[in-house]
Every structure is written in C-alpha cells, then in structure tokens.
C-alpha cells in the first residue's frame, strides 16, 4: 500500500462485528485516503454492508475502532457524511421533493438546495407522485440525491446500481465522477464494479469479513 501524504479520512483498526455467533467483520484494519473513489466488492455476506454501516456510525463494533474524519465520535462529523443504503431510506407515500425537504430540514438545509440536487440527478423537481410509484431507477437516483443533499466530504453508497436501468446507472456514474473531481471521498459497495471502471481509484475485495486485496484495476473474474 502506497503511503499517502494526506491524513486518511477513514481508519479502521482491528474492526470486529459479531451478530450473535455470526461474525460479519473479522478484524478489518484499513485506511482510506481522502479525495478518492473506492469500490468495495465481494460476495454476499462478505461484510461489505457491515463495514459501510460501521463507517456511517449506524452500528457499534464489537471490538476495534473506527475513526472517521479524525474522530471516533461519528455523530460529531455526520454533517460531513452522506449515506445511501440498500433500501431507499425514503418515505413511499411522500413525493420526491417532500422527502428531500424533510431530510434537508434535519441537516438545516433549505428547500432550494433540494431542488438543485434533484435537477442535477436529472429528476423532475415538479414531480408530485409519491416515491412508491417511481421506477426503481428513479428511486435509486432520488436516494442518491438524499445522500448528497448535505454536500458531504465522505459519501457511502451501498449497492447504488442494483435493479437500475442503464440510463440511470450512467447518470449516477457521472455524478460520482463529478464528486471525485471535487475531491470528495466515495466508498461504493457494489456487485456491479464494471459501472465504475472508469472512475474508481481502487478496488477493495472482501472475503468472509476481511479485506483480502486492494488493487488499482478491476481484474476479470471479480
């Protein structure tokens, strides 16, 4: 691993997470440098989602520590983190703009920012339909819009491309490459790393709760 000159933005040290007798993470010690786009790949149950949730501060590690943006109290820096989960994290009965206005309120963001973000993801801000009636691609884009609403330094994405049509995937990839140019750090967990071939800095492979390999290129067969 190359020594980076800047301080890492995420440091996991001996991270272990057990759910009952099942160990989702078995000692992850890794650093992630700022301004890069990391793609985390691995089979189901490899611990990718758990790692991402630990970085987001949603789960408490059984052992080990995780330091994000220089602190272990992730709640203190959550203003600078964006998190997109496997589920949409949206209210199905509310329209897109109602959803974003509500979540914006939690970050102290005004509604014109929500409209801007929606437009950037090529969604129609005037859309009155509840999110439950959106297509999967639109819902994923709106979900991404929610995650980037607070203009985060560190963006965590869990399976952004699942069940997404190619046009939506294209739009999301474009946004991610824009973010990378703005020196934001992005961690993406995905089963479809090919979408990110052009923008990824590093591919991180996980097997059975540990990181087994990090490399700059995506090899065939991963």
């Amino acid at each position, binding site marked *: 691993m190359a020594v980076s000159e800047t301080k890492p933005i995420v440091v996991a040290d001996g991270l272990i997470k057990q759910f009952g007798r099942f160990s989702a993470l078995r000692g992850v010690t890794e650093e992630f440098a700022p301004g890069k786009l990391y793609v985390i790949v691995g089979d189901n149950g490899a611990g990718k989602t758990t790692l991402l949730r630990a970085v987001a501060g949603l789960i408490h590690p*059984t052992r080990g520590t995780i330091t994000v943006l220089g602190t272990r109290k992730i709640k203190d820096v959550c203003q600078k983190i964006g998190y997109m989960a496997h589920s949409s994290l949206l209210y199905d009965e509310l329209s897109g703009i109602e959803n974003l206005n509500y979540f914006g309120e939690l970050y102290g963001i005004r509604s014109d920012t929500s409209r801007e973000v929606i437009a950037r993801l090529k969604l129609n801000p005037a859309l009155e339909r509840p999110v439950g009636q959106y297509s999967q691609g639109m819902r994923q884009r709106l979900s991404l819009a929610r995650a980037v609403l607070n203009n985060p330094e560190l963006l965590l994405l869990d399976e952004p491309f699942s069940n997404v049509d190619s046009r939506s995937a294209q739009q999301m990839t474009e946004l991610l490459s824009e973010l990378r140019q703005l020196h934001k750090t992005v961690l993406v967990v995905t089963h479809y790393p090919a979408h990110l071939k052009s923008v990824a800095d590093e591919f991180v492979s996980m097997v059975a709760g540990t990181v087994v390999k990090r490399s700059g290129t995506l090899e065939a067969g991963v």
Partner: protein
Amino acid sequence: MKRGFTLLATVAGLLLSFGLYEALIAAPTERTMGDVQRIFYYHVPSAWTAFLLFLINFAASVVFLVRRNAAADILALVTAEVGVVFCTVVLVTGPLWARPVWGIWWAPGDIRLTTTLVLWLIYISYLMLRRFSTSSQTPLVAAIVAIFGALDVPLVYFSIWFFRTQHPSPVIGGGGSLDPRMARVLLINWAAFLCLAGLICWTRYLLEIARRQVEEAQGMESLLERSP
C-alpha cells in the same frame, strides 16, 4: 472465594432451620388470628428481601447507564430474577393469610399487596424484554426500562393509597406494636432470607459470567473459522 460461598451456604442453612423452629414453635400464638398469623414470618421477610433486591437492581441499572460495565448489568439481571422469586412468595402467602383473616383472598385497596403485585408485573416485563431483545445493546435498553419501573413505584404507591381512602379495606398486621418476641423471630427469618437471596444471587451471578464467557469463546471460534 469458594470458602466464602460455603460459609454463606452454611449460615443460610442454619438460619433457615432455626427460623423455621422459631416461627412455628417458639413464637407466641397471636391472640385474634391464631396460628395462621405465623405465615407472617415468611410473608414479611420475603417482601423486604424482594424490595431490597429491586432497589439494588435500580442502583445497578443507574451505574450501568453511567459506567457501562458488565458487572453492573449482570447484577441488575440477577437481582431482578431473584427479586421476582421472592415477590412471588409474597403474592402467594398474602392471600393465604388474608383468606382466613378477612374472609377474602384479595383486596384491591390493600396498599402493600397491590403495590407488590404491580412491582411484580413491572419486573416480569423487564425480564421478558431482556429475553426477547434482539438488540446488541440489550443491557442498555434494559437499564432504561428498570429506571422507568423504579420511577413508577412511588406513583403506584400514591395511586393505591388514594384508591384505598375511597374504597376502604382491611390491612393485615401493621399498626399497633409488635410483640418483641415476634419481632425477634421476624428479624431472624429476615436474616435467613437475606442469606438465601445472597446465595442464589451469587450462584446466578457466576452462572451468568460463565454463560457470557462461553458466548464470547464461541464468538472467537467463529472468528477463526476460515470458511466463507
């Protein structure tokens, strides 16, 4: 440690036998209630022991909330379990005593029995929560519920106290002064019950520690398994 345990067990055994003799044979027969009053020597010490255990449960829960140390959590769990057992004794012996004396099994206006019943319900629900919880932070949530339960106790007491003023009902024992010989038997039995409770809590405490160690070892084992 092991010797302390044996000593406590011996003392508990001796006190319980002595207490039994004192309560059933040596203590004077109550003038109006007769022999049935002797249940008093089991009813009241059980109640005091249960209340003491619940008090420890509350203190341990507060300590856990502040310090987050596992020992406080185990202590809270253990005292709640054993407290419920002694509380059950109170709730069984109470009506057994009430029936011949008042002619009824249960008087909802009786402040002490009813408060005990509510307390029993609260701690049963506390133990159920511990059992059903899927959270990895069960001790934390349980500590909060224990504190809520403790906050409820004075409110329960006052509500029943006022309920009684509107629905008068007889009170067992209480009032008047206790014959000093009866008081002595009561105290002996209480000491015996305290030793017994301490003994059960101690055993249960060690058991719980062992259980957690096994769980942790199994967790470590699953860490080492290399299969995907």
